Structures are given as C-alpha cells and as structure tokens.
C-alpha cells in the first residue's frame, strides 16, 4: 500500500448519478486483489476533510501514445453521487490532481477454487465483484446476479458478460430484467446449484436477505461491507463491526478497513449490522 499523488485520466457519468473514474496509478495492479479498496482525496481540497473509501473496480493498462513509451497503468473506481464528497468528485476532470491510498484491506478469499460461484451485487455494490469475476472465470463457472431499484442502478453488466460471466438482472420496478428482488433470483440459483459459493456486496438489507438464503441452502458466503471510516489503515477505529460471539462482556469489534472489507458471513454478528442508515456522512 502506498499514497499515490496522482491525477485523473477520465471521469464520466455512466448512468444517472453513477460515475466511472480512471486514475493514473503506476505499479498498483500487481499489488491489488479483488475486494480491496482505496481511500480517495481531492488534492488541496478542504472540505471535505476526510478521504472517502471506494472499492477497486479494476486495474489495467492504456496503450502508450507512441511505441517507445511504456503503457499507462490505471486503477478504476465506480461511485454514486450521494453527498458532498462525491458531488465534488463528479465535477473533476482529466488531469485534475488527486490522492489515492491503497490498495487497502483484505480481499475475497479464493482458496476454494473450482465449481459454481454466484456473485450478488446491489447497485454500486457491484464494484468489487468485477475484479473478483475476472479472477474467478478461468477456473470456475461464474454467475452475476445484479439488482437495483431501477434500470439506472444496473451498471457495467456488459463488461461482466465480456469476461464470460452469465448475468441475471432484477429491478424493484421491473424497468430492466426481472421485476423483484435479487434474492428471488439467488434462491432459484441455489436450488439449481446446491454446491455454489456466494459473494455479495450491496446495501445492508440486501446483504441480510442474501445471508438468510445462504443459511437456508447452506451455501458459503463472503460479503464486502461499507462503513464510515476516517483513516482506512486501522488507526481511527471508526469503522468497526461486531464479530461473531460479541457480547458486552466479551466484545469483539473488527475494523472494516483491516479485518475486512470482505468478511466470511459466519465471522460476523449480523444482529449488530446496519446501524449506519444515513447515506452519507452529512458534512455538506
């Protein structure tokens, strides 16, 4: 991990309220694993004071401008405009200077390779699943179940398809794909593939419903969580979640930034999750 003082290569709105930012980051890709994140800061901008955590969507190389130049390495994040920080980000352009701390945290555990893998993404929760899918497709059968409120919340599905991932879309209002919740689709897939391993990222109500289904079908589940955090490196202790077995007498608090953001579902105390019902920190 490293603090990159770098600049933006591109920043585009890909769906109403959703953006894709590509940032120059030499050497980033070989250190990054799926499920890790970065702490992003608009350089010399105060406020917002704190960095914002963003999941890594992917890393890659741009072809050089001429033959004797090395290719340009980048990291890509997708984000939703929700508060002051992301509103400022949405207005940034190519060449604007930014800082990126990363890659941070523990990624997905891919040790049980082979077999059926089901990826469940809700809205912007899709982000960490792309790199995961690209790491899994060679040795596994990978399916993506993508849910959102409306068609606007369904992102980057064709990119998953290009990897060779089978994709299933559901929306609450039926404006794209099947009408209903992503967990309906998950239930059908778990019935069909009883040995599947599930990876999920999305809003807490979705993660809780996914976990219920996985318990019911005894499918192993890994979830990627999002919490407010100030530092991203385990110092501020602002982003803790309760671990399994947590009690007032024997407390177990796990830092989302260093013990996570990816957790095995059985390692978490699910009753304590989902207290952060604000969509943004409210610094505006």
């Amino acid at each position, binding site marked *: 991990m490293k603090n990159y003082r770098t600049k933006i290569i591109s920043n585009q709105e890909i769906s109403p309220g959703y953006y894709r930012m590509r940032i120059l980051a030499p050497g980033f890709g070989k250190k990054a694993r799926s499920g890790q994140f970065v702490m992003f800061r608009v350089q010399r901008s105060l406020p917002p*004071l704190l960095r914002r955590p963003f999941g890594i969507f992917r890393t890659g190389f741009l072809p050089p401008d001429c033959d004797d130049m090395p290719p340009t390495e980048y990291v890509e994040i997708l984000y939703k405009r929700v508060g002051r920080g992301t509103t400022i980000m949405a207005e940034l352009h190519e060449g604007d200077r930014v800082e990126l*701390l990363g890659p941070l945290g523990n990624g997905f555990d891919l040790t049980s390779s082979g077999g059926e893998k089901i990826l469940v993404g809700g809205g912007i929760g899709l982000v960490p699943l792309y790199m995961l899918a690209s790491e899994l497709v060679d040795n596994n059968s990978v399916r993506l179940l993508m849910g959102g409120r409306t068609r606007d919340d369904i992102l980057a599905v064709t990119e998953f398809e290009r990897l060779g991932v089978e994709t299933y879309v559901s929306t609450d209002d039926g404006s794209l794909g099947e009408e209903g919740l992503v967990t309906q689709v998950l239930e059908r897939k778990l019935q069909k593939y009883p040995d599947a391993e599930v990876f999920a990222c999305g809003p807490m109500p979705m993660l809780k419903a996914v976990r219920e289904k996985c318990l019911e079908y005894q499918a192993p589940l890994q979830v990627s969580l999002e919490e407010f955090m100030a*530092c991203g*490196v385990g*110092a*501020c202790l602002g982003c*803790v979640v309760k671990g399994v077995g947590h009690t007032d007498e024997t407390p177990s608090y796990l830092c989302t930034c260093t013990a996570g953001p990816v957790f095995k579902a059985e390692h978490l105390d699910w009753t304590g999750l989902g207290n*952060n019902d*604000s969509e943004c920190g*409210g610094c505006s």
Partner: protein
Amino acid sequence: MRPDQTTQSKRPSLAVEIAGIRLRNPVMPASGTFGYGEEYAPFLDLEDIGAIVTKGLSLKPKAGNPTPRIAETISGMLNAIGLQNVGIDAFKKHKIPFLRTLNTPVIANFFGNTLEEYGEVAERLEDIPEIVAAELNISCPNVKQGGIVFGTDPKAASEVVRLVRSKLSKPLIVKLTPNVTDITVVARAVEEAGADAICCINTLTGMSIDIRTRKPRLANRTGGLSGPAIRPIAVRMVHQVVQAVSLPVIGVGGIVRAMDALEFLIAGATAVQVGTANFVDPSAMITIINGIEEFCIEEGIDDINQLIGSLR
C-alpha cells in the same frame, strides 16, 4: 529530510526538550490518531518524527462504543470511539516489540475509569523501559463519582495527577480537556499536583444530527470534535495555559499544515501534536516537519527554540 553533508551545517536545529525528553523535532502524533505506531509504518519513516504517542491505554482491554462512531463535519470530525484499546498488558506483549526497534521516543497515553485504575496503569507503565514518558488523559468520567469528568474539576484533576505522580518516576504529561470554563484553573491545579508538562487541547464535545432520520449521527449521541475547525480555540487555550503555568506545553488541535504548527510554537508550545490530519494524509507529519524547517530557513532562524514563545 536526508540532505548531504554540505547542506547539513546550514540546517536549522529543530530539536526540543520536554520534561527532560529530547525530541529530534517538535512534531508527534496525537493519541488515538496513530494507533500503536505500526499502523503507519508503511507510509512514513517513524524515525523522522519527534515522538510516538500511543492510543490511550487502560488497565483492561476496552471495547469502545457502538457504531456509528465517527461523522464528518465542516472542517472537522466528531468521534466517539470510546477509547477502544488492547489494554496495558497486551500492549506490552504485542506492541512494544515493534516500538522497541525504533530510535524514536515512545510516549504512552493512558486513562482509567476510577482513580485506582489510573494508579494501576501508571505502575505498569513505570515497569516498561521502552516507554520514556506517560501522557495522562483526564478527560474521562469518574465512574465512582457519578461520571464527573476528572479533567473538568480542578480538585479531581489534582487528585488523579497526585496519585499517578506517586507511582510514576517517568516524565508525566497531563492532557487537558477544553470543555471547561477556564482551562488555566485546571492547568494550575495539575502543575501544583506534580505534572511535568501539559498537553492541550483534547477534543471539544459536539453533536451532529441527521435531519432525515432525526437521529444523532453518532450512536453515542455526542462525540469529540477535532480537525481544523477547532484550531483557533486550541491556539487560544495554549496561549492561556502558557501564560498561566511555568511547565512546557504541547499544543494540539486542528494542525494540518506547517503554518498551523508554527502558530502553536509561536504561542509558546514547546512541541505540537498532529491528530486528525494523520487520517487525511498518513505522511502529514513529515510534510509539517519539512515545512517548519523551510520556514526557519526563510526567517533566518537557526534554532527552533528561538521561535517558541516568540509571540509579539
């Protein structure tokens, strides 16, 4: 920070001394914003900063508060972490081995829920040779006396400092809370009780409400405000304390840039602590140290001590 020999002779001296501890420069982290040091090792050379100040330590491990624990505010942040820490014994066992490898003074911040606990932690700190000084956090509620914060009552503050002093021969820094009517009253009380230095200020109690859910943003309802928002208050209080006592003062509150640190030094702080800025930029202290050095060169100051307390 690594000039060749030819320029070294012209570099200003940034070394300062606080309560007998010599620091290579006056910049150190504020407790609770730098973990136990090792968290930040990937991002800066820990031997470039003046000292390391640990997360607040207690007798037993402490779980801390429910979440949400932090919220961003304008130019600041509120936190109610609840002093989560590994406890003094685990600190000694698991954190000291790393700290021992560093050629940088380690200051242990500590607290207790009762007077007795303060005393017991002090006794254990006395027995850890790697700890060069202790920083006493008196911004905690006294559980046995109805939760009145030690540091807001000059009598209680004096009592806890006196007890700790009797158990600890190492330099004792007392960190004051700003949540009082007159900080100089408490400053004088802890000076009389035997403190070797004063650190001020701790966070200011604040609150933020989500207007949509109509709930406080922190599960604890209130929390400590830190960051640039509190800096002018901190500078004022450091100035007041410097006038009120003859002890060295460590200034802390909202330092983000070198020019912020310089304000505190000019006001009379012998050293400064950087807190929230570590979260924003893990190498913030290095940028601040370099900036202080540049300022000294620009101003023709060859020893930082010429600047300290030079307020006109």
